[in-house]
């Protein structure tokens, strides 16, 4: 059955200026303005945020769960990316 509710959009809210936009849910809307207005009505009725992004769900490219192991594998064998990899002389108190 075709959907008469318009395409799906993902909604991201920024709580305060300077903070990251966080995904909070999705909604149906026919165009950008409507998506933004619906997002405001649906997700920010109680001061949850001061800025919104709406993104067509179809535009999102996601990794797939089956990838989980291999796709992120390269990060596991590069311990030198972490500060704890490097021994520090005891006398150095701050670095």
């Amino acid at each position, binding site marked *: 059955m075709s959907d008469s*509710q318009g395409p799906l959009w993902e909604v991201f809210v920024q709580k305060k200026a300077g903070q990251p936009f966080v995904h909070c849910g999705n909604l149906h*809307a*026919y165009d950008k303005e409507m998506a933004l207005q619906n997002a405001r009505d649906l997700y920010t009725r109680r001061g949850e945020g001061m800025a919104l992004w709406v993104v067509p769900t179809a535009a999102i490219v996601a990794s797939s769960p089956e990838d989980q192991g291999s796709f992120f594998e390269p990060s596991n064998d590069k311990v030198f990316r972490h500060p704890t990899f490097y021994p520090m002389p005891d006398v150095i108190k701050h670095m």
Partner: protein
Amino acid sequence: MENKDFEAIFENKLAKNEMVEPKDWMPDNYRKHLLRQISQHAHSEIIGMLPEGNWISRAPSLRSKLVLLAKVQDEGGHGLYLYTAAESLGTSRDEMLDALQTGRAKYSSIFNYPTLSWADIGAVGWLVDGAAIMNQVMLQRTSYGPYARAMVRICKEESFHQRQGYEVMTHMAFGTPEQKEMAQDALNRWWFPTLMMFGPPDSESPNSENAIKWRIKRETNDQLRQRFVNQTVEQVQYLGLTIPDKNLKWNESKKGYDFSEPDWAEFKNVIKGNGPCNKERLDARNKAHNEGRWVREAAAAYGKKQMEQYAAA
């Protein structure tokens, strides 16, 4: 990977209290169970707007009108959160609305009872939302991610619903003798239908076992019902009202109240479509849907044009 491996990954996720996400493999019956439960839940939020909406134009003060409007608007939002959670399992909004509007899908039996007086608006917020919250607090930790996240938002918003209902009840119960009588009458009519909201007794609940096994639910119908009664008795006593159940009695050994079961034959009958307002609710829902058709069509046509211009630019 074989199906067996996928199943092992799924079982392992449940065992570790991790959430199942839309793209993860899941057993067909798990998906079916969720689809049924989440869409029924969504329908209940939407149909639940009708008995309360009935009083918006007749609220006794501007303040109570604003509060009731805000509450009913929240319920509409809850329906939308839940519909999109269900859509992530592979159905469409239109399919779900069609199932609702042709009577194939169910919604909570409670909304097939009428709201006869202003005290009913108090009783609905206090008891019906109270019972719904008890269920929804548990569902915040349900195993399907989109459902759990919708529940977290819903629970945040629900907390004012029960309190505004109880406030109406206090005004009525501490008002004139006539008002107190209306409050008692509302309690009399809503008590047992509210207890039915938790679903049939565990011994006769065909879907419960799987729901617990899959961590969709974490507590049984009877456990939630017992907790609700234990919590509510004190609230009734404060109002100076009486729960319409002669068998209600504190039971020290179980540290909880004994109480009468609701009339399960009535419950089944209401679910079947024979409650006092089933027809009225479906008619109202269909009327709103049909009268809104031209708006959806116009908005869709406008939206399509906008997107084409956007793509061309």
